[in-house]
């Protein structure tokens, strides 16, 4: 068991190699949206060795002597945006199966699938996305399994997948939206074909995993006893008689470990509350079933979607967990008003729920900030909207000390644009990731230039 935990530890701590920011970069004269401490007009941001080393009003910040100073007056400067659920690196062309590694459909219970094994660092979608200021994202498998595999937290710039996969197996999606049933076509129906079936299957799996964990714990205990006996001097006295007693000798054999089961093993950190489960439901009834399951097994969880659970928002607030909301473009049900989903972020915020936005896609991940913008039109305060794609997301994913705001000591993921980050008209001029000036090119800009005669 200990060896297993060591492996998990290494996986979790597998962080990127320090970035190769060559010399300090200073952004001078911009309007800083710090997210954590308000707006600074005519501000300065200093980036050194991949970190933010100073932030503040131009008059108060000391600029390093060897720094490259970039005049960004008239520009707006803000932290890199974080998309709290994408399929970036798992898909290239939606309709072309061979370019997709989205989800294993052979079984509903696939927690031992790791998106880092498929993450395609060279995907053409990644430059397209980061050109709009998205610097980090959760990569999740598609949601057609109840337990489709574990998410990774990535940085959208780097020389290789290992450099971009900041945190592997950061969370486990648990999808309970009714879309995970194997019920089509009816004559080929197999278990689980109902919500009862899905819930029963999950419950059995969690119990199996608990038993599995118990077997390993028992083994570890026996092993410890054995080690203790082996090293105990009083026990050694009996060794004189050892050759005479073969049965005694048997007892001295180290206990044999249980057979490893990767599927059940993958669930242990979540059943022990060490990592969050991302609990996806859309309807009120599914939400309660999913939360019930998570609570039954003492799981730590964040909620996902809940687009049609408007009747349960007070209940959601009482759970005191964050919500990855939307997408707010999810169409309302026929009996719902046109803005039922658009207004969900505002309604959650009103109740003190911490929210984050996600594109829940790949090609359109670049449009993440516009969801936040549109939600403000339906009552979400602007600052909260910006937080929901920066600091809230960072905090939800345990990266609050490194990402999500313009603060000293944080990773220098900084975006320079010609205006309001949440407005569709705003053009992103430069993106810095770990202090490096990201080339502002993509397959799309190259096609544009080619056919513009550039």
């Amino acid at each position, binding site marked *: 068991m200990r060896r297993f935990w060591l492996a998990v530890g290494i996986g979790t701590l597998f962080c990127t190699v320090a970035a190769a920011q060559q010399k300090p970069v200073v952004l001078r004269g911009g309007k800083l949206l710090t997210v954590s401490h308000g707006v600074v007009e005519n501000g300065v941001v200093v980036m050194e060795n991949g970190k933010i080393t100073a932030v503040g009003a131009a008059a108060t910040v000391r600029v390093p002597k060897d720094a490259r100073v970039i005049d960004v007056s008239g520009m707006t400067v803000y932290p890199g945006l974080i998309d709290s659920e994408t399929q970036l690196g798992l898909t*290239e*062309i*939606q*309709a*072309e199966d061979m370019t997709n590694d989205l989800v294993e459909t052979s079984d509903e219970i696939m927690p031992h699938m790791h998106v880092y094994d498929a993450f395609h660092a060279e995907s053409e*979608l990644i430059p397209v996305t980061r050109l709009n200021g998205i610097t980090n994202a959760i990569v999740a498998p598609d949601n057609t399994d109840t337990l489709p595999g574990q998410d990774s937290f990535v940085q959208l710039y780097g020389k290789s997948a290992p450099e971009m996969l900041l945190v592997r197996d950061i969370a486990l999606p648990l999808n309970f939206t009714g879309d995970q049933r194997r019920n089509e076509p009816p004559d080929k129906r197999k278990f689980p074909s109902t919500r009862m079936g899905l819930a029963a299957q999950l419950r059995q799996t969690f119990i199996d995993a608990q038993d599995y964990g118990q077997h390993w714990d028992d083994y570890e205990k026996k092993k410890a006893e054995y080690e203790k006996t082996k090293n105990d001097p009083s026990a050694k006295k009996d060794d004189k008689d050892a050759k005479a007693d073969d049965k005694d000798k048997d007892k001295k054999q180290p206990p044999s470990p249980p057979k490893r089961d990767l599927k059940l093993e993958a669930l242990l950190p979540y059943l022990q509350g060490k990592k969050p489960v991302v609990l996806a439901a859309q309807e009120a009834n599914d939400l309660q079933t999913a939360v019930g399951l998570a609570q039954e097994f003492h799981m730590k969880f964040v909620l996902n979607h809940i687009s049609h659970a408007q009747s349960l928002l007070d209940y959601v607030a009482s759970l005191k967990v964050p919500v990855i909301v939307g997408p707010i*473009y999810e*169409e*309302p049900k*026929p*009996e719902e*008003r*046109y*803005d039922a989903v658009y207004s969900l972020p505002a309604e959650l915020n009103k109740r003190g729920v911490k929210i984050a936005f996600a594109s829940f896609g*790949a*090609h*359109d991940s*670049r*449009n993440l*900030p*516009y969801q936040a*913008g*549109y939600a*403000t*039109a*339906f009552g979400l305060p602007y600052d909260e909207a910006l937080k929901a794609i920066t600091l809230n997301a960072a905090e939800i994913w345990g990266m609050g000390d490194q990402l999500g705001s313009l603060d000293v000591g944080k990773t220098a993921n900084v975006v320079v644009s010609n205006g309001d980050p*949440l*407005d*569709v*008209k*705003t*053009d992103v001029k430069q993106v810095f990731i770990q202090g490096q000036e990201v080339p502002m090119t993509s397959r*799309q*800009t190259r*096609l*544009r230039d080619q*056919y*513009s005669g550039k």
Partner: protein
Amino acid sequence: MANRFVRRLGVVAGLIFLVAWAAYGQTPPAATHNEVLIKNAVVMTATHGNITNGSVYIKDGKIVAVGKDVSAPASATVVDAGGKYLTPGIVDSHSHIALDHDVNEATSPVTPQMMMIDAFDYQDKAVYRALAGGVTTSLLLHGSANMIGGQAVVIKHKYGLNRDAMLFPGAPRSIKFASGENPKRVYGSKDQLPSTRMGNFAVQREALVQAQDYMREWDEYNAKVKAGDKDATPPKHDLKMEALADVLRGNLLVQIHCYRADELLTEMAMAKEFGYKLRAFHHALEAYKVADQLAANNVGIATFADWWGYKQEAWDAIPWNAVMAMRKGVRVAIKSDSGDFARRLNQEAAKTIRYGGATEEEALKMITLNAAWIIGVDDKVGSIDVGKDADLVIWQGYPLSSYGLPDKVFIDGDVYFDRSLPGFGMPHYKEGM
């Protein structure tokens, strides 16, 4: 449970109806239209700039006057826009909503005799949701499974009225053609023709040749009759051939689903070969590669702002497509092709300001006047000009941004959506009608 909820909503909607009419002092739309003066608005005309503190005077559903100083009789209902933006109603030039999944008659690659009006589910709430996003006119098209699909229906989003009251009066007929991946996938997967682009165009060419033969047979028959031949037997009336003959006669606006540059060129060549005109290419994500030729042939495009990568033929899509094509002289519309995008076409259009530097009016035209031209109703809607239908939207926030959302939507001078009303916000809607 759901039914009870719906019934309860029906009661609410009924109340809204009464409240609304009390608020506007209008009679229901069946009666003659009252006169309305919308004043104190930033009028975005789409044709002649913005008028700050402008007014629009509406009589009998038409725009009678637009400007800074507009006089209206005291009897006119005054709507104070409170300094908000006023735009023409949004026109969606490519939609499949309200067809109850009957979008594709995917049993044959040539089905021009399909009439989308026969599938028009006028009670579909998607019509309402688009209305709440400012859409007042939509072109409901056949899908793209067939090289030659069916004939479109043009609707006004008068949600709550009966089916025929929602049809756009006098709108020209459009027919949907398609090309590329969809037909070859649909029929190829059934091991039928077409399964390649060669097959696609062969099917299309063959259908057009048949239509030429059909027309010749009728011409010959008519000539015989004219010459006094009383024994002449008329050819069979064939709906499918009649529809194709109407394409060749120029009686239908041809709307072609087409992605790749090479196929845009092939479709234009085929139109030339058979002597019909193309109205617009839809999707047209590679229009930027052949924009000169599109402009030379006066073919418009109805495209996405930045949607891409969903299939191989959408792989070269770039968000600068709309503006690059426009700068070459192509009439460009941004369309929804989805119940979702239809609700926020204003934001999609605004993206062209960022990607390529469209002006405010150019961006607005892409979801109003240019879209209306593609449908063939630009003489009636698509701008705030005297004589046009009073299809208007008052916006909270600036419409060409992330923040614009419709406060009130007028169609033919009547309010069909009012955000401030409780429930669905629809004065004309009663659940179950």
